[in-house]
């Protein structure tokens, strides 16, 4: 079996990378991808925890299933929005749209 702590550290590293990407990527698609990384890090942790803590109940795995489905919905809507933004602005960079600038 895989070592638990290393696996968790791996998940947190993935999480940190995702955060970094979400904060720095200019292209919205890039941001989406970073968010997917974050999701995956969470999923990974869930799976590891459920293996370690409560293998019988499988709650973590169920949770991961839900996360994946929601992620699918999220990405679908997100990309639809992105497309419509692109149509309006001809741009999908995160700092191009700043209507709420104070």
């Amino acid at each position: 079996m895989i070592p638990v702590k290393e696996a968790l550290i791996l998940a947190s590293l993935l999480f940190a990378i995702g955060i970094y990407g979400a904060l720095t990527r200019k292209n919205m698609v890039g941001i989406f991808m970073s968010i997917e990384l974050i999701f995956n890090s969470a999923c990974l942790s869930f799976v590891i925890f459920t293996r370690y803590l409560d293998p019988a109940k499988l709650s973590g795995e169920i949770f991961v299933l839900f996360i994946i489905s929601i992620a699918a919905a999220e990405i679908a809507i997100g990309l639809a929005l992105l497309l419509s933004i692109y149509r309006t602005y001809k741009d999908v960079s995160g700092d191009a749209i700043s209507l709420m600038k104070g």
Partner: protein
Amino acid sequence: MFKFAGLALLCPLLSFLVISFFTRKSDRLSAFVSIAAILGSLASSVMLFALVLSQPGNHELTTVWMKFPVNINIEFGFLLNPLSAVMLLVVTSVSFLVQVYSMGYMKGDPAFRKYYAFLSLFSFSMIGLVLANNFLEMYIFWEMVGLSSYLLIGHWYHKPEAAVAAKKAFVVTRFGDFGFLVAILILSAKTGTFNFLQLEGMLGGGILTSGMITLVALLMFAGAAGKSAQFPLHVWLPDAMEGPTPVSALIHAATMVAAGIYLVARAYFLFSMSETAMLVIAVIGCFTAFFAGSIALAQDDIKKILAYSTVSQLGYMMLALGVGGYTAGFFHLITHASFKALLFLTAGSLIHSLGTNNIWEMGGLFRKMRITAVTFLIGGLALAGVFPTSGYFSKDAILIQVFTSGHYILFAMSLATVGFTAFYMSRAFFVVFLSTEKFGKKHPHESPAVMWVPLVILSIFALGLGAWTNGFNALIFFGGPAHETEHDLFVPIVSSCVAFLSALLAWAIYQKRFAFLTALAPRFSAITTVLRNKYYIDEFYAFCVNRVLYVISNASAWVDRNVVDGAVNGTAYLVGASANVLRKIQTGRVQNYALGIFGGVVTLWLLFSMVK
């Protein structure tokens, strides 16, 4: 006995209400209601007086006005004794005569009903003041007479002078009342009662330190000085002459201005415990007498002459009270009420007939208005203190009292005042009645009977009250009845000589117009200017009010707008300004916000781990 007191009090109140609410349509009816009411009061006060004569001493009736769970006694009641009975008689009789007189004087005035309503209100308040059995009740009515005085002075409110004079009268007396109020507060805090008799007992028991008594007495005297127009709060009284003349006679000569004297007399148990307070009263009274008498010398307006004369006479009364002449001072109050009301009413008769107040526009009226002239003469003689008028008895009693008290400076000043009095009264008499006719095309005529009958009645009192001296002395006294001192003739003779010489001087100047005297006039022009301008006291007060009070007030308004409110607006501005800076954080870029969120989370983490 209390029935009569209640009746005397309620009649005018009822009349006030009836006139205000019901008889608004009819002048005659209003006057009738008012006069009937005051007649009722007069009748009951006569009955009351008779009863008090038969059983002298203090009779008290009291009810609780407000009840508190602490030891304080806020009550309402009557205290009947010779002092209040006599005062009540004076008030109701003068009120009655003035109300009758006003029927003629105020005839055709558009605000006739209002006038009578306010006269009734005044009578009510004044009677309440006289009958009060405690300081608080007295203060209440005290303020209400002030109000009626305000309303009546401002009767012709559309005249700016009248409006200003009314306001001035109210505010100046209110300054004095402030002292009165503080005195009441001190008494209530220290003793828990306002009741005269209880306080008398408590003070006798030494509940207050002597310093405290002096303080209370002086504060209370401030109230009395305001009401009785004592220096330096005398300035309102001459201006109050803007009111109708009968009002001046009633309120500003006979009754309300005497309320100050009455207060001192009522609270004599308090005043007599403090030598300092007594001395202050005597000095201020004497100074006021002298000072106002001198101003009266140079006035041209007949009502102003009489007004300053009133101030001066009130000063006499205060002086008498201050040197221990309780009986003498109060007796002078009564005689003064009769002859000063008389003088004012005759002046009213003159004004009514000629339409002017200026004595130099009158002249030679003796033949045209005989009754007025004779009654004026009687009043003038009484005021000057000529034997055998009532003024002689009361004034000499005061002078003797001052002389025997040993305050020779005060005596000298009051003697000088006697001279002043004789001089200005003779001057007025000679100029108005005996000099050459100056009224030109106007046709002076004797006033109607409704006006001259009260004059005659009053002049009878002015002449005859002196006969009652001994009876009065036996009735009204403080401590014990004034002993029958063997008549020291020195004081009466000196004062009569002074009066006679002054009158002679006035005759020489104003009637005979001796050349060597008129030539002297320019030499005294500086003095006359000062006197004409009433020693510039009004100017000084105007300066105080305009320059000091209004400057303070404008400064506070400025502070309020710019400092206090400025702080508020400044805070608002600061919030706005910092928002202007802080809004730059609001970049509108989602990733910036995300950075903020995660940065925040991280910072919190670090902070918490550090705290741990």
